[in-house]
């Protein structure tokens, strides 16, 4: 009995090894096919070079400025407000917008005439209000809210207020200590606001030291350059998937799939080999691209790169599976290409990789939670993988595996 069990285990192991060997041989062959299609590799490399140069060009020309001018009306000249404004105007926002100092009336006029997209107004006595524990506000007047830069600006200011609040909450720890040390109420309020402003000031001025901090990333939000860089990666991923799987239709038409199946290769081997080979190639190419980007605009970090590889591979596999379904399912070139373009255009628009979702209809924004390009884009921007996203990705895998199977059956050999 025991011998029989050992035999069964050995047979299972041998079968698994055989399956693995078949898959690995097919993958190697698929990779050779890709390498031998030199023109595709060259085209993709040229595309990457074009993108890298585009980003370098943009960065050397003071960032992406999309006709974006923001008026500043600062009526409070205290150290705290100056620190705050310096950090607004001289930090990452300067890559996106151009600032113009003015007074409130003129600022509102400029806004009305569409000469600026927003106006930031700090009222006289803001610091005094804060010092006496009263609510002070940072006023933001916006014109065209669909302007991408305005979206980023709102995001930036929201985070700025958050930091101020965090600073105040942190300072509250000292409330009881100050009370025990004999500070009266006004004195405590004054000290508390000082600590809060110091916290904000330290946070902002020493921001560069904590480049890796997640809090800092959250604070700044996504800059336009990283936003569109991540979007470019996804677009190149779609292009590479098309390049690498273009032959599937030919494989069917010229009987290569039929022949592979008749020689004992199964569907799982065929499609897995195609996905592994295609994803490996495009991921390797885009890792190089990402590394160049990090060296040029960020700092090369192995941790960040590994996170990028994981998230990008995950997204890339799903993109490749979707592209494969198109090539398996539709044999007519014109119909397939039209459907393909329509599908990915809608998917891209609804994902926010072309325009931020905040500029769109609420339904679109809500649906983007289920959009793989939106999920992939958020992951590439550095957001963490939530349980919801994991479930959606798993759902994608399941649906796509079933779809490839049925697309193959429908196409026939």
């Amino acid at each position: 009995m025991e011998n029989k069990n050992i035999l069964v285990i050995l047979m299972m192991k041998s079968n698994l090894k055989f399956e693995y060997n078949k898959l690995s041989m097919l993958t190697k062959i698929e990779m050779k096919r890709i390498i031998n299609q030199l023109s595709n590799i060259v085209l993709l490399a040229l595309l990457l070079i074009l993108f890298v140069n585009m980003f370098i060009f943009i960065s050397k020309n003071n960032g992406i400025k999309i006709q974006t001018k923001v008026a500043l009306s600062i009526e409070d000249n205290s150290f705290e407000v100056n620190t705050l404004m310096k950090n607004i105007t001289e930090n990452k926002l300067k890559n996106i917008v151009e600032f113009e100092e003015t007074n409130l009336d003129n600022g509102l006029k400029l806004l009305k005439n569409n000469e600026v997209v927003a106006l930031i107004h700090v009222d006289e006595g803001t610091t005094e209000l804060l010092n006496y524990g009263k609510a002070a506000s940072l006023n933001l007047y916006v014109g065209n809210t669909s302007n991408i830069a305005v979206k980023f600006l709102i995001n930036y200011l929201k985070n700025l207020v958050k930091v101020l609040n965090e600073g105040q909450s942190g300072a509250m720890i000292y409330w009881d200590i100050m009370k025990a040390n004999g500070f009266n109420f006004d004195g405590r309020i004054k000290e508390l606001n000082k600590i809060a402003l110091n916290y904000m000031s330290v946070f902002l001025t020493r921001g560069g030291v904590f480049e890796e901090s997640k809090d800092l990333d959250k604070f700044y939000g996504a800059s336009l350059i990283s936003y569109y860089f991540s979007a470019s990666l996804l677009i190149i991923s779609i292009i590479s998937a098309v390049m690498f799987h273009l032959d599937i239709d030919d494989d069917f038409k010229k009987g290569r799939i039929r022949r592979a199946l008749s020689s004992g290769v199964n569907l799982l081997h065929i499609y897995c080999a195609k996905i592994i080979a295609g994803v490996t190639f495009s991921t390797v190419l885009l890792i190089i691209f990402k590394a160049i980007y990090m060296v040029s605009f960020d700092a090369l970090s192995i941790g960040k790169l590994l996170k990028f590889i994981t998230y990008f591979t995950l997204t890339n596999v799903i993109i490749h599976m979707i592209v494969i379904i198109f090539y398996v399912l539709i044999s007519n070139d014109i119909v397939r290409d039209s459907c393909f373009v329509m599908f990915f255009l809608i998917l891209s628009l609804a994902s926010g990789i072309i325009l931020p979702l905040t500029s769109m209809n609420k339904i679109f924004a809500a649906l983007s939670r289920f959009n793989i390009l939106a999920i992939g884009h958020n992951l590439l921007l550095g957001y963490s993988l939530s349980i919801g996203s994991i479930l959606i990705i798993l759902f994608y895998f399941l649906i796509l595996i079933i779809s490839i199977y049925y697309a193959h059956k429908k196409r026939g050999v």
Partner: protein
Amino acid sequence: MLKVSHICKTIENKNILSNISFILNDGDVLGIAGPNGAGKSTLISILSTIIKPTKGNISYYVNGDLYKGEKKDIIGYVPQDIALYEELNIKDNLLLFGSTISNDTRIVLNKATNIARALGLMDEFKTRVSKLSGGTKRRVNIAIGLIRDPKFVFMDEPVVGVDYRARRDIEYIISNMRSQGKIITITSHLIEFLENTCNKLLILENGKQKYFGDFDDEVKSKI
């Protein structure tokens, strides 16, 4: 022996094949003739287990016993189209389609080398398929079908678009296989080619079996 009993195939309510039956013994070479749309390619696809018949039964006998194992191990299929990866060389094409022979790559490579040698492909073993002549591509196409050294070989229009010399080569390959006791089935529009290679003939017309029997002078008039 190959025993085909009452094979029918219906696709979208259209009868492609009706009631096809015949028996082939070891060393038999069957030629399937008939006009376009007669069902030749469908029949060969069914025989090589690529598609299933709607009705009927096919039994494969090896050394006198009914074969119950994996059919792919005893069947070699040569499609009408040159189903090769043009961007790969002959060796890689053979390795790809022979990958299911064994989990030992050396065994697969050995089989690939043997079949390439037998079909005179060794000189161009590492040449990319896209650079080969039409005749050589045909030979590679056949080599892939034979890499497993199958007992049953099914060839769909193996001499379409090849010149006289390449056709003679293919006839020679078939004759060699026949002498090894393999059972071969060929579809072709070229009666002269079938005459040179086959000892049995099956004539199909509108999916129906018009004739099955020995290939002799008398039957030539029926084609």
